[in-house]
């Protein structure tokens, strides 16, 4: 980290002259705030200490305290390097960049203060994956594969007996779940089948980004299905999460499923982008786009709906609460990448940093990452007349086998209360997978 001398002096002056100020504002107690020097050589520092600094900084930004923001960001930048050895450092560094982005947008005077010499540049241009690269990337950890396996198992069971299967794949992984589904259908369902796959065009507004169009992606999938002797159709519906996929729902209503057709809606980490109540706090909950979506989905009477999401609450309007939740969730992906090769880790962490920045620095409709907890999602599903279905034991064994082939910290648990399967990292909940049918 390099910074101009004058700035450093200015900061130091701040501390000594303004001790009283600091004490009065009670932001950082001098006794508990170790000297800057000792932190600089720390190879990681304490995660909770980092968190406290980040939270203080967030508070300072929202109270327009430019000076304090500057101090805190300077300190944070010193102690958390994006290439740091420990995942805590890299995690904190991602948050620092996000806070910087927020600070600059909220407190324009800081824009000139910071400049590029002091701080790391904002998150890199996000990488665009080729589909083959993305296929490999998705399987670096069980993060997505967990949901894929659970959902595919349930889907296979649901569609048995149907001659046509219509899958609506609302997934942020650009249909990466589909090849194994096709393979499973080809292998396990010994009967002819027409597979219709529908996707939405707006699934390309957040990472991971791919470098080909959905048309090309679809053609590859159809090609693959053909090679497995499955007839397949691929449809792209222009529809966006920001209005709760209303065009998609409308399309589905216009072309209702025939009696021998199964409709499966696979929601893999996509529904979190639909605006929830926190975006429109004044309207009644029933009108939130999220509920409207589920309600309309229910009225289509789908054969099955799978819902796989990350188990965290990033919806709070209060920045401090939200940042704390985010910090206490995103440490997980950073921790899981410790064993990765550096290029993969860099890419992976860049994706997470994008999300962190979205959660911390953006507001209103720009803040699209509105992840909710499992509990909240279950409530929504039940409110909209869906009933949870337990995934079969075979799926559970398959999941365990898959987890066994990844790093040791991965585990899973079954929640007896609600038929969900939860992927865990070192005991902490990461992703939950649930399966629903209309009731």
């Amino acid at each position, binding site marked *: 980290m390099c910074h101009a001398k004058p700035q450093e002096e200015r900061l130091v002056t701040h501390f000594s002259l303004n001790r009283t100020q600091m004490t009065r504002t009670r932001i950082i107690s001098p006794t508990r705030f170790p000297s800057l020097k000792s932190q600089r050589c720390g190879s*990681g520092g*304490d995660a909770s200490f980092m968190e*406290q600094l980040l939270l203080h900084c967030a508070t300072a930004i929202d109270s327009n305290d430019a000076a304090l923001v500057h101090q805190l960001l300077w300190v944070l930048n010193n102690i958390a390097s994006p290439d740091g*050895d*420990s995942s805590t450092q890299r995690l904190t560094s991602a948050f620092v960049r996000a806070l910087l982005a927020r600070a600059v947008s909220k407190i324009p005077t800081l824009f000139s203060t910071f400049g590029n010499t002091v701080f790391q540049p904002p998150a890199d241009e996000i990488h665009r994956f080729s589909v*083959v690269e993305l*296929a490999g990337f998705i*399987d670096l950890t069980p993060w997505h*594969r967990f949901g894929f396996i659970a959902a595919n198992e349930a889907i296979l*069971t649901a*569609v*048995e007996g149907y001659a046509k299967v219509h899958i609506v794949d609302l997934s942020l992984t650009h249909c990466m779940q589909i*090849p*194994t589904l096709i*393979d499973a*259908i*080809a*292998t*396990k369902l*010994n*009967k*002819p*089948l*027409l597979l219709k796959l529908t996707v939405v065009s707006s699934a390309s507004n957040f990472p991971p980004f791919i470098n080909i169009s959905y048309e090309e*992606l679809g053609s*590859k999938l*159809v*090609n693959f299905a*053909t*090679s*497995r*002797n*499955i*007839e*397949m159709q691929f449809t*792209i519906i222009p529809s966006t999460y920001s209005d709760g996929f209303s065009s998609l729902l409308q399309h589905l209503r216009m072309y209702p499923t*025939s*009696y*021998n057709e199964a409709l499966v809606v696979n929601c893999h980490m996509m529904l979190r982008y639909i605006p929830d109540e926190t975006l429109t706090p004044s309207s009644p909950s029933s009108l939130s786009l999220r509920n409207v979506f589920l309600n309309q989905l229910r009225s289509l009477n789908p054969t*099955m709906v799978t819902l796989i999401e990350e188990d*965290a*609450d990033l919806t709070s309007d209060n920045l401090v*609460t939200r940042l*704390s*939740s985010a910090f*206490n*969730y995103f440490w997980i992906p950073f921790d899981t990448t410790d064993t990765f090769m550096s290029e993969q880790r860099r890419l992976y962490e860049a994706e997470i940093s994008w999300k962190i920045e979205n959660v911390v620095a953006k507001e209103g409709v720009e803040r699209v990452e509105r992840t909710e*907890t*499992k*509990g909240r999602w279950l*409530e929504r599903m039940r409110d909209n007349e869906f*009933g949870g279905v*337990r995934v079969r*034991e075979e799926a559970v064994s398959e999941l365990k086998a898959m987890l*066994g082939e990844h790093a*040791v910290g991965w585990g899973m648990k079954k929640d007896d209360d*609600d038929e969900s399967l939860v992927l865990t990292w*070192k005991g902490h*909940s990461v992703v939950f997978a649930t399966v629903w*049918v209309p009731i």
Partner: protein
Amino acid sequence: MPVDLDDSSTVSGDASVSSTGNQNPPPQSAVKKKRNLPGMPDPDSEVIALSPKTLMATNRFVCEICSKGFQRDQNLQLHRRGHNLPWKLRQRSSKEVRKKVYVCPVSGCVHHDPSRALGDLTGIKKHFCRKHGEKKYKCEKCSKSYAVQSDWKAHSKICGSKEYRCDCGTLFSRRDSFITHRAFCDVLAEESAKNHTQSKKLYPETVSESQQKSPAAVDSPPPSPSPPPVSVSVSVESETEPEPANIASSLVLPIQDSSDEPENNTLEVIMEEAPRTIGLNGSDDHSNNNKSVYAALFASSSSSPSLYAASSTPSPSLFPPSSSMEPISLCLSTTGPSLFGATIQDPPPPHFLTPLLPPPPQPAISATALLQKAAQMGSTGSGGSLLRGLGIVSTTSSPMELSSHEAGFGLGLGLPCSSGSGLKELMMGNSSVFDPKQTTLDFLGLGRAVGNNNPGGGGLSSALWGGGGGMDVFGSGELSDKDTGRRSS
């Protein structure tokens, strides 16, 4: 008791240190009792910070009577029983045992922080070894080395055991990753392109060639890499000609070998497609809709191949190919003799690829009739004769009737299985009557677990229900909302 404070510059509060008070006094242990930060795993648990030496010590639990050391507390307790202690001394302290969580002694480590403590002593030991220990165990087959013996053992079991290689040269240890890669790998596209030079090209890459109704039919002589079909009915062979006419026989599909080129399959579903860009409406031919049955032939080597020919239940699939089209559906589906594949009757939504089904040239034969015929034929070892006997199925004329049975085939037969043994064998498992209520083929309504689940095994389609009840629909239970914010452990 010596208390060893580990250096922590935590901002969060009150670090109060007290002695352990438990009955196992390993001399070098350091215990810091401290409340976890709120919201973290089990805030009431006691955080235990052990020095590296103690952590790795093999005998942490010491018997107070004879000073014998044990690795596990349970073992110590078992041992203590042998001392015949008087009742009072035998009981452990009745104070409530607080859950203990452990931190890693290495400062700077993620798990050094109490809020990232692990609940399991063995877990923290393993973590300590893995992250900070020396990797003493090396795999013989590959270059990996491990610090924890159990990790090493687990790895050795799977190292080199399964390997999937894509044509592009990439190697995979997991089948999932291999399949996903294959679907998108360019090599697949090229292969398919090559193998379909004569056949109609399906692949949408080239919109321009879509309308060519090249006589493609069946690639009857299996391209060399594929193994010869187990028993391909003669009629199939004769079908080489592009005029697909009537492929009356069900094609028993050759078992594809483990080559990664399923597209080399003799009988391939070739769909004449009219690749359309998004926005165009459906394909013209689409309206005709034949029901083509596209069988799923599975060529995957990793799945138990068997199937088909070996199976005693050949399934006929018939497709009325039309002059412009090719058929195929190899359907070795155990679902009854006639297969009605997808009836593509839906109105053409904007779609990208549509398989076109040309109109069947034959008059409709009702499913019932077909089934009866099949029953008369009896079950044969080869699919050919059965299929030949069945004639061609054309479904367009009576879509409804057929479809009704179509639905049934997924489960078994749409007809009561009153027919002979042949028919029975065609049915899945030993399921009995299929409930002809097709209104909602709600899988939940299926109920019964139908027989065996051997994929590819006797050719009988597996009852995916497997054992048990399959699904339990969970109604509105009480929501156990354990999350107040971030969910932890």
